[in-house]
């Protein structure tokens, strides 16, 4: 159960592009290795009377898979993303409005949920929606030897004994959401959380760098 060395614990290559779509208020595409997700945000906009909440904005998340129609799996992923976003967005600033977040899976090569969370956060930033903290997603897999692998590829995910995704917030590195699959001990869980918190620092630094780059011309 011990983690030996740092050979498997690395994050794949990241890439991100913001404001790539003209219609949505905010859009971003996030790439982790070969996994890529495109996120679009509309809001705050008009909301249907049946869905309106008197003191908060109504957040709706839609995940579109690449092939086929959305199924139960997408619904559960949507739930995870929505709860994370609701925890970090300042929804009470836009009562009786709707925020719609649409995520399109462009390619799935493992760590899909964390890629979706990262894309969602960047899109919300791009849309200029007020948030109390940023969040990022990190996936850890525990393979059959007990080694912890962060940001696993699809092949690594298949071989793993347990797969966990955590959404970590930027201010205090706490866990906003966790979604796990497979069996593992409490010890392993805590180790994975610690690893994710470490990994999230890299991701938040990446967020900072990309935003700084984005506004470099305006800040000059």
């Amino acid at each position, binding site marked *: 159960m011990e*983690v030996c*060395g*740092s050979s498997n*614990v*690395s*994050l*794949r*290559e*990241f*890439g*991100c*592009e*913001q404001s*790539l*779509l*003209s*219609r*949505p208020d905010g*859009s971003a*595409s996030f*790439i982790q*290795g*070969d996994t*890529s997700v*495109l996120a*679009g945000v*509309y809001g705050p*906009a*008009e909301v249907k009377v049946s869905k309106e909440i008197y003191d908060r904005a109504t957040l709706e998340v*839609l995940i*579109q898979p*690449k*092939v*086929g129609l959305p199924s139960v799996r997408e619904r559960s992923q949507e739930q995870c993303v929505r709860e994370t976003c609701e925890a970090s967005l300042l929804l009470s600033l836009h009562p009786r409005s*709707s925020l*719609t977040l*649409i995520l*399109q899976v*462009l*390619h799935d*090569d493992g760590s899909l949920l964390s890629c979706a969370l990262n894309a969602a956060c960047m899109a919300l930033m791009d849309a200029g929606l007020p948030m109390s903290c940023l969040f990022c997603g990190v996936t850890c897999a525990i393979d059959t030897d007990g080694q912890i692998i*962060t940001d696993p590829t699809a092949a690594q995910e298949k071989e793993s004994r347990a797969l966990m995704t955590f959404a970590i917030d930027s201010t205090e590195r706490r866990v906003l959401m966790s979604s796990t699959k497979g069996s593992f*001990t*409490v*010890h392993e869980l*805590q*180790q994975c*959380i*610690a*690893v994710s918190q*470490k*990994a999230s620092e*890299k991701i938040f630094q*990446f967020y900072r*760098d*990309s935003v700084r*780059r*984005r506004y*470099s*011309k305006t800040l000059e």
Partner: protein
Amino acid sequence: MKDTPLANCERDFLLKAIEEKKRLDGRQTYDYRKIKITFGTDYGCCFVDLGRTRVMAQVSCELVAPKENRPNEGIMFFNIELSPMASPAFEQGRQSELSVKLNRQLERCLRNSKCIDTESLCVVSGEKVWQIRVDVHMLNHDGNLMDAASIAAITALCHFRRPDVAIQGDEVTVFSPEERDPIPLSIYHMPISVSFSFFQQGTYLLVDPCEREERVMDGLLMIAMNKHREICSIQSSGGIMLLKDQVMRCSKIASVKVSEITELIGKALENDKKARKAGGRCGFAESIPQERITALKMEESPVEMMDVTERANDIVQKAEAPPQTVPSPVVPVPGVGQVGQGLQNTWGLEDDDEEEEEEEENGNRGEEQEGKASKMEKYEKEESRGGDVVEISDSEEEEVVILHPETSDKAPVNTGSRSSSHQKGAAKSKKK
């Protein structure tokens, strides 16, 4: 979400500009916007940018039984998804008129024109054929979705490779991409649709309308052709009245445009083939423009794991220890009532595996009560066991393995011994 309605002054402005042969983005009447085609990592995935309209197509295949009246032919299935991302007017799950229209047009353009040899998709006649599924997702709606969708669909079909199949007598083997190289589909020709929009009752005509122009247009004429100047499909929509010479003129313009676009597609496919052969990484990741300030890339980076183990151990030890004596939670198996039996004693008295096994094998309420009585006796004997789940049920399952929650406040040594004693207990129950 509703789309912002078009203001009357904007409408008048657009119509007036069109009368003066001016377009919003400065194009000429017969000019297309810039078309950019990129491919994804796996075969059959293609992104098309028509100006700011963005569309993604994905082709996938699967072995299914063929249709009854066509046992020798494969099946082609097209699906255009108007993703809510593309426009606030699109709603998830609702089959709007536009969605039906686009789907039918794409089907007619690609399926009825027989651009793909469906007979080559047959594996075992009458039993197994390939079903090729094309999913087109609209990512950004800035006008002329039909053309972008048709370009994306046909490019993705040309790019797609299906798994190789070998038939030996009755045995059919499907090879994975690692075993044998996948083979491309046999495509006869590439139909591409060109859209013409009409304004002021057919007086003015524009090619490739953008979204604003689409809102003020009277009607649309879609002509799908291939580069051999064969018309694959014509569809007029929107309630306009056309004259024959208008249609003829449009078909001439369309043939010119189609040959240009086909060349572009050919070039893009060639470039992608070269890139894949050279072994480089190709895919969406590579197509992120590096020079833009809205894009950033970061290389693979290791994560520091120095103090992870210690931290984890810390947290685990500092975690609130679950109480020593856990009352046995009573879990009635669904379908079993508790009437007349009373609930299990929750005073923290432990229970034993083996007694439960007896209960379940009896499968009888009366005997359960007896079993419980003996259980009560045994309580004093057993000590310091973790909380057990008591299942009251009529099930006659022979073998039941009860999982015990781990209590992490004891040192690892104890855990080992406990687990072994648990295992002994489970082994005993299994023997029964």
